[in-house]
């Protein structure tokens, strides 16, 4: 079944809100390093965009999801994700090397998550424009 863009984002927003609320509640009940309301707000706000994006991407199967492996969209996703994975590994390796040379004690892993997602998104857009 094909979902419209509005339906897809509505479902994604509802699911994201529900999951973010649950994550915020769990964090607020288990962590004691900040007031509960602050913990809830921080974890819910951090969770919300990722869950919304994940659900929206998961529902984006355009037409004929049963034949997904025969579609160019599937090939674009595979190529974009494998390219982004390679880029992320290289970036992490270079950063780890720099960190050992410069004696950094911590590495901001979330930066690589953001870089990987941005890389994959950019690759998808480029492939769609070039081959679509």
């Amino acid at each position, binding site marked *: 079944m094909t979902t419209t863009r509005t339906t897809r984002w509505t479902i994604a927003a509802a699911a994201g809100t529900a999951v973010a609320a649950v994550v915020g509640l769990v964090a607020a009940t288990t962590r004691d390093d900040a007031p509960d309301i602050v913990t809830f707000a921080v974890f819910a706000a951090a969770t919300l965009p990722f869950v919304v994006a994940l659900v929206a991407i998961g529902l984006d199967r*355009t037409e004929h999801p049963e034949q997904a492996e025969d579609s160019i969209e599937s090939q674009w996703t595979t190529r974009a994700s494998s390219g982004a994975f390679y880029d992320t590994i290289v970036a992490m390796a270079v950063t780890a090397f720099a960190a050992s040379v410069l004696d950094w004690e911590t590495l901001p892993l979330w930066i690589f998550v953001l870089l990987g997602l941005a890389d994959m998104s950019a690759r998808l857009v480029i492939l769609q424009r070039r*081959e679509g």
Partner: protein
Amino acid sequence: MHNRLKALREEAGLSQAECADALGVSRQTVISIEKGHFDPRLSLAFRISRLFDVAVDEAFTPDD
């Protein structure tokens, strides 16, 4: 790989959307095959050959 999908589709009087529906793929996939950007898997190649009633090697030929 070269393919004759566009010629076969036009001979059959099908639009890209109708062809995509008949093959069970997206219109974007049909466009990409016709442009030569996407070589379909064997299962889709057989569906194309059945749809237009031609042999697979009449619809698809290797580059060399």
